């Protein structure tokens, strides 16, 4: 793939996620999902990203997260 676009990396503090899904609908490239295989310490399905290569580091997810679960870096 041509490397013109900005790349980002998102880290979730998974154990404090409330699985609300606001980050899921905020992501412009639709790479966030709730992990239905996992239940965190709070009892929720935490948000997760499989295809981090697609992340553009826009921080829309972190901007909408009510629980400050997300850290965003730009590569």
């Amino acid at each position, binding site marked *: 793939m041509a490397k013109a676009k900005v790349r980002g990396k998102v880290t979730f503090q998974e154990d404090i996620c409330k699985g609300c899904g606001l980050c899921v*609908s*905020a992501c412009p490239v639709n790479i966030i999902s709730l992990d239905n295989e996992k239940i965190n310490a709070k009892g929720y399905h935490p948000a997760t990203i499989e295809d981090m290569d697609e992340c553009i580091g826009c921080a*829309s997810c*972190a*901007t*909408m997260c*009510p629980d400050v679960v997300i850290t965003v870096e*730009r590569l």
Partner: protein
Amino acid sequence: MAVVFKKTKGLTDAQTHYCPGCTHGIVHRLVGEVLEELGVLDKAIGVAPVGCSVLAYKYFNCDMHEAAHGRAPAVATGIKRVRPDNFVFTYQGDGDLASIGTAEIVHAAHRGEKISTIFINNAIYGMTGGQMAPTTLVGQKATTAPNGRDEAHCGKPIKMSELLATIDGAKFVERVTVTTPANVRKAKKAIKECFKLQLEGKGFGIVEVLSTCPTNWGYTPQEALKWLEENMIPYYPLGNFRKPEEVE
């Protein structure tokens, strides 16, 4: 690798008790970020309300005081008058500010108290289980209005920003929301402008934030944001109602 978003020092490490997707959390973060960016964490004193944000004193990383229901502006007035060099703000819900505490907010604004207020309008009494508030929309269901708010019986919802904008002492009045990343950024800008006004000694400022209560509205967090955009914004228009330049 550059960090473009990380948690503000304006919030403590305590995990909030808010329901999943409740926008109280987004607004807490914005207030924390603005306090940090303005460099006032050391001299900020917040006043927490009664309502879902009753525990806000555990979440903001500055000195905090609790007030009786609706009385945050009166408590903030006292604090600011004895400690004029501190930055003093209240954080209040619509049941708190627009119902039991209407007199306190109106007169604090009228006196031109040099305090700042964050007003969370979610059109419901969240904490107590979804009773109708003065801000509940006509037709909106609440536990005390099972068939929806009846205008003939309860009147129309009160528009606090418009009301406060008629008061001379209120130098900054703006209504924002947090339904999208762009709206969240605008909300933060308004909060910053409002807080700066106090630091410049100009008088009373308030930012009303249209917010969600997914739990008592009976929607998922995403549906609640959509409901807010489709129903609350048409009745409660976003925008600035008063800025110092216009007042002078």
